[in-house]
């Protein structure tokens, strides 16, 4: 809460004053959010609270990181947001601290419990739900509109989309069409073709062993994975330990040939957040497929170490 002294705050308000003076005359902004609510702001917001890591990343990627005055517990990228006040998680957002920050707008996930309470207190809340690649494009458009940077948002989307296409295009032929099992949790829950990870895998031309009709994150019978016999397994470091020792799993091609890609927590963050870093996610998966096509993939040498947050 004491990230900025009075001097810093004065400097910031001076800077925003200069900025607004040079930009166009204030015009109200109207956006329909993912709940279907219409949110109207008198002007481009100057103080923003973000309660979803991917939205925080979107704001920063659009160049307005300085406007973010508070974030949820799990926003950790870019590094500059780690100094901001932490306002709690999905179910335990600290309303008092949030209100004290006097944000012009709060951006949050649709499922955040705090939304109704904040609106009752007179705050403007934009609830967005980025889950798939299409969602990322839509949310990016809405955030661009909110920040008065619609052209930047369009350019950013084109860049992200272009990078993904490039990752796919530069894959060697041997790394294409490999069958992949992406494990989200040791349940075992896998990432289906309908999930964000599944969509990226599809863009890279990999064969997901989980058929579309099972939904985004089905809880599978472990036997299903042994029977599907994937060539590559992708798994977060939290769940990787003991995976080769599960009953019967030693017969899976990916286990036998040591083609298991283990994501360290920072990589998992990129892979599970549908946001502007999804081109990085595609690059990570492409790296995995490329390495797997060549031979055994080395496990990370650093021991598992992750502060709370995300699905690692």
């Amino acid at each position, binding site marked *: 809460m004491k990230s900025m002294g009075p001097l810093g705050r004065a400097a910031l308000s001076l800077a925003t004053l200069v900025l607004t003076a040079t930009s166009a005359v204030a015009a109200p902004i109207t956006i329909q959010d993912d709940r279907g609510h219409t949110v109207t702001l008198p002007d481009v917001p100057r103080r923003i609270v973000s309660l979803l890591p991917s939205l925080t990343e979107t704001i920063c990627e659009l160049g307005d990181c300085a406007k973010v005055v508070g974030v949820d517990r799990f926003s950790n990228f870019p590094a500059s947001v780690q100094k901001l006040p932490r306002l709690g998680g999905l179910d*335990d957002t600290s309303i008092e601290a949030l209100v004290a920050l006097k944000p012009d707008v709060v951006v949050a996930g649709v499922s955040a419990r705090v939304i109704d309470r904040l609106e009752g207190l007179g705050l403007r809340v934009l609830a967005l739900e980025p889950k798939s690649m299409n969602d990322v494009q839509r949310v990016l458009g809405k955030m661009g509109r909110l920040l008065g940077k619609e052209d930047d948002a369009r350019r950013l989307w084109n860049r992200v989309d272009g990078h993904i296409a490039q990752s796919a295009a530069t894959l060697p032929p041997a790394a294409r069409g490999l069958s992949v099992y992406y494990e989200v949790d040791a349940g075992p829950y896998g990432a289906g073709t309908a999930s964000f990870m599944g969509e990226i895998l599809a863009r890279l031309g990999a064969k997901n062993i989980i058929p579309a009709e099972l939904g985004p994150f089905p809880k599978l019978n472990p036997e299903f994975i042994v*029977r599907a016999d994937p060539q590559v397994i992708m798994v977060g470091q939290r769940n990787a330990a003991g995976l080769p020792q599960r009953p019967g799993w030693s017969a899976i091609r990916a286990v036998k040939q040591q083609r298991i890609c283990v994501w360290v927590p920072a990589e998992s963050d990129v892979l599970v957040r549908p946001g502007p870093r999804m081109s990085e996610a595609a690059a990570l998966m492409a790296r995995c497929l490329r390495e797997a096509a060549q031979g055994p993939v080395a496990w990370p040498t650093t021991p598992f170490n992750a502060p709370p947050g995300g699905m690692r």
Partner: protein
Amino acid sequence: MRAKSASSATSASSASSASSAPSAASASSAASTASARIAAQFVALLVLGAVLLALGLAIGSLGWSPWTEAGDTMRLILWDIRAPRSLGAWLAGALLALAGAVAQGLFRNPLADPYLLGCSAGASLGVAALLFVMGISPAAAALALRVGMTGAAFVGAIGAVLLTLVLARGVTQSLRLLLAGVVVGVVLGSGAALLTLMNPDILRAMQAFMLGSTGYVGWSAVQVMAVALGLCLLTALGCSRTLDALTLGEDTARSLGQRLTLIRLLLIATLSLATGAAVAQCGLIAFVGLVAPHLVRSWGPTTHGALLLLSALTGGALLLAADIAARWVIAPQELPVGIITALLGGSYLLWLMHRRKAHFGGAGGSQ
């Protein structure tokens, strides 16, 4: 074991015949028909278990898929996945049901279940703490890996029971024990909830644990549970006379020469070992421990020796049936097995209660 249970049923049936036998004159013939019925039930439950095991070998991620082809993969799936999983489900069900029967007899309370003394909350706190410290520091992660989920759950379950015993100042007062168990359950449970809230990473894993799963039961888990079941059955059957005497009240039991404190301690150790072993391997599977002894009692009056044995067999069959249903219904996806046990066991119990309202009125059924 069969002969032992039958003989103990015959000899001790006089203790419980007060409520079951219609008159003193027909007491001896009632006792012999009862032991014949129990022997028949014993055999029937063993056969049911064997049939379910065979069914368990034939049902997997494709639904009904018996061993028709003779490939390497099929052999692996059968012997490394389906066989230990089915056997493990049966063993876990038997352990939980045995623990439930012991708890109901020991506390003379038809609502008692294996999780009565805080086992479930302790186990979930153990698992939550393990998952939580995994990411804190490399040293903690290394330690957590060595302990493993099963170790953490087992230590948590046993620790919770010990805490309950300390709070209740030993085992002499049943009411104090029950209260302490409830308190320990609530406190440790909220500890687990707090850890989960602080680190949503572990939410999915915790949920899977709370609903129970037999998906990863391998041969080593089967060995552990088989040894635990053997030990627990021997101890429980050895103490079954005391449980029979306890139905007449604690003072009467003591006056009949039972060493109550020692036997109680033994039975609580049995209860926690059985629950801890099952929970560590398969998570918190609901309802088997509560419903299995009730099912056995609903088939007719028994002494505790027979009740304990039949409950274990019933629980095994129930959980194995639930496990088969869990992998069959929406294959290749799986339902959490705990939901199915509650559905299967609960609806059967409801139906029984509906059919025989008059008999279920009294506490403890036909105990």
